[in-house]
């Protein structure tokens, strides 16, 4: 039965990808892309990866879709007609590459094979040793924040660098006070406002739950950060960019990404000051599993703070850019409305 679900979901996702390719209305293509991400999240769940499914659903169907919609509102909505273009060369390249890759999969182990090389060497070590050495049930969080903490540090810095890039390209300057826009004040938006008021606190609370319960269930810093940003973005879409910017004071929001990276890097420096290696959590307390858990909580908080503030800042920068070019527009000012 698992296999049947797997087969069907993979067939659906392939059809969805072909639809994305063929749609010329980019707004519809973005909606199909959201569906594509959701089917991928379902696939990850059936393939025993709920952490990844969580992140893919929140990031792909949430943040990515919102950002592409914000871009579409400032660029073109429809793709130019492709009739008459020479597509022989791309088709040849794609078919040759695809054929070579499929020829390469003939030697790969069967799907789920226990004797596959991927399940030897490192993976049994993590599965067998992490209960004694780290002591948290979620092995993915243990590997992410402790065994492979250097990779996670690199990733947090990459996210921060992307924020710097977006600021360098689009600017963080607030727009002049004259060009203000009000929130949705018309009465017939009441339904949206009431439901948003009910749902946003639940989302933020769930984000905090995911952050701290990420050691016992699927979750962790990334998912929590993205969920938090999604909650505030929902608030911004319904109640206006101005109200949403006041949720977190702008000066604090601008400093939070750096603070998150500093928390993560600072944990490493703290362990070095206490006599261990960089990010060697065992020096943080007497009992190694306790020390590991303290270290994991600290770095996960750093990750969560950085990811939440970066996603939020990038959204605010995109939305402000769109509104600056069309002053007097309605609140939010984007999402293809």
């Amino acid at each position: 039965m698992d296999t049947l679900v797997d087969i069907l979901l993979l067939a659906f996702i392939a059809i969805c990808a072909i639809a994305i390719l063929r749609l010329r209305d980019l707004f519809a293509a973005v909606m199909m892309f959201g569906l594509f991400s959701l089917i991928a999240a379902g696939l990850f769940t059936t393939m025993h990866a709920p952490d990844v499914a969580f992140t893919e659903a929140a990031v792909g169907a949430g943040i990515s879709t919102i950002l592409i919609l914000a871009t579409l509102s400032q660029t073109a909505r429809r793709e130019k007609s492709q009739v008459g273009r020479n597509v022989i060369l791309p088709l040849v390249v794609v078919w040759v590459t695809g054929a070579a890759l499929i020829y390469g999969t003939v030697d790969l182990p069967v799907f789920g094979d226990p004797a596959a090389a991927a399940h030897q060497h490192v993976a049994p070590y993590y599965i067998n040793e992490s209960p004694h050495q780290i002591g948290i049930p979620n092995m993915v969080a243990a590997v992410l924040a402790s065994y492979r903490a250097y990779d996670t540090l690199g990733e947090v810095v990459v996210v921060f660098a992307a924020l710097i890039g977006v600021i360098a390209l689009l600017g963080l300057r607030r727009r002049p006070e004259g060009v203000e826009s009000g929130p949705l004040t018309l009465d017939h938006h009441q339904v949206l406002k009431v439901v948003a008021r009910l749902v946003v606190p639940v989302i933020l609370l769930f984000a905090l739950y995911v952050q701290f319960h990420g050691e016992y269930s699927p979750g962790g810093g990334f998912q929590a950060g993205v969920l938090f940003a999604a909650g505030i973005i929902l608030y911004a879409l319904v109640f206006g960019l101005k109200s949403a910017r006041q949720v977190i004071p702008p000066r604090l929001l601008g400093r939070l990404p750096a603070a998150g990276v500093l928390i993560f890097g600072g944990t490493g420096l703290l362990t070095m000051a206490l006599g261990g290696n960089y990010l060697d959590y065992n020096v943080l307390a007497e009992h190694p599993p306790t020390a590991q858990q303290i270290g994991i909580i600290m770095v996960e908080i750093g990750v969560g703070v950085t990811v939440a503030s970066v996603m939020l800042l990038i959204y605010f920068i995109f939305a402000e850019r769109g509104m600056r070019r069309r002053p007097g527009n309605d609140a939010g000012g984007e999402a293809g409305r």
Partner: protein
Amino acid sequence: MSFFAHYNYHIAIILAMIGFYTMISRTNLVKKIIGLNVFQVSVFILFISIGVLEGGTVPILREGYELYSNPLPHVLILTAIVVGVAMTALALALAIRIHEAYGTVEEDEIHAQDDEPGAQ
């Protein structure tokens, strides 16, 4: 079922090729970025498929379960997803700036404007 032994990998490759084709044959920059995301998700599916253990379960310790799927691909893909969205954000910011500078996001029109004599 011998046909479905490598089905996951084949579909992941087909998805990758669809994303690749979108990137190289369409002229709209935003469509290219969407194709890039499709390509990324296909690579995630490939990796997670490699980590699946038949008869295993989610890699979270629970009573009564012995076999766990490999947690390492999950960690790598978690990182990859977040890096992917960071890259998408940067690419979209570039597209917005290109639109402001050239007035269009269609690749051939941008090249035409660049090739005009007198354009710098």
